[in-house]
């Protein structure tokens, strides 16, 4: 399946776009997305394991299963305040 992942801040800058489409096995998890993202978009490798992910605008842990069309975002370490 294809999962569209929104990118912010340095992630967007590294990828050069706001949204990337990542191929994942059907029913794949955030943990699998974590591995697939830098494989399919090597520019994002510098994020390492520091980025979090959200699904439906809420933080999602590594076990969260993804569906095609899910609202997924990559959340690099935040620096608001």
């Amino acid at each position, binding site marked *: 399946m294809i999962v569209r992942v*929104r990118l*912010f*801040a*340095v992630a967007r*800058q590294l990828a050069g776009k706001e949204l990337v489409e990542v191929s994942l096995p059907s029913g794949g998890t955030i943990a699998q997305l974590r591995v697939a993202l830098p494989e399919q978009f090597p520019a994002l490798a*510098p*994020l*390492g394991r*520091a980025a979090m992910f*959200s699904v439906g*605008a*809420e*933080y999602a842990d590594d076990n969260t299963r993804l569906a095609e069309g899910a609202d997924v*975002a990559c*959340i*690099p*370490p*935040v*620096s*608001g*305040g």
Partner: protein
Amino acid sequence: MIELTHRPIDSAELLCKVGSNQAGAVVLFLGTVREMTGERRTIALDYECYPEMAQRQLADLEAQARARWPIIECAIVHRLGHLELGEASVAVAVSTAHRDVAFEAARWLIDTLKQVVPIWKKENWADGATEWIHPGLPPEAER
């Protein structure tokens, strides 16, 4: 009350909003754009956020604080976009009957906001470089 805004933060308005005849104490925290970070000089900051999620996270912070402390009114505002030196990027205002709680809740709100709300700042260094700030990631130069 929470807000994400591209306009300058109006502290006087926030203080009005949290004022109450039931309050004996108000604590306002402002985060402001500081020129020096160690030896490095900033000329401006740019803030961006993931709007839907930042909004939710801020609302959740307010709800958590209200569940934990007897807060009368609470206002959390984060500025977005381009900020000059000295401008406020964030404001947290809390009113309570007694001051212990106002200090404790305001401190918790700003500490937690900085850890969890998906907002990011980009430094515009005086040497012309720009850099997204991501605590825990190596500086851009070393990535």
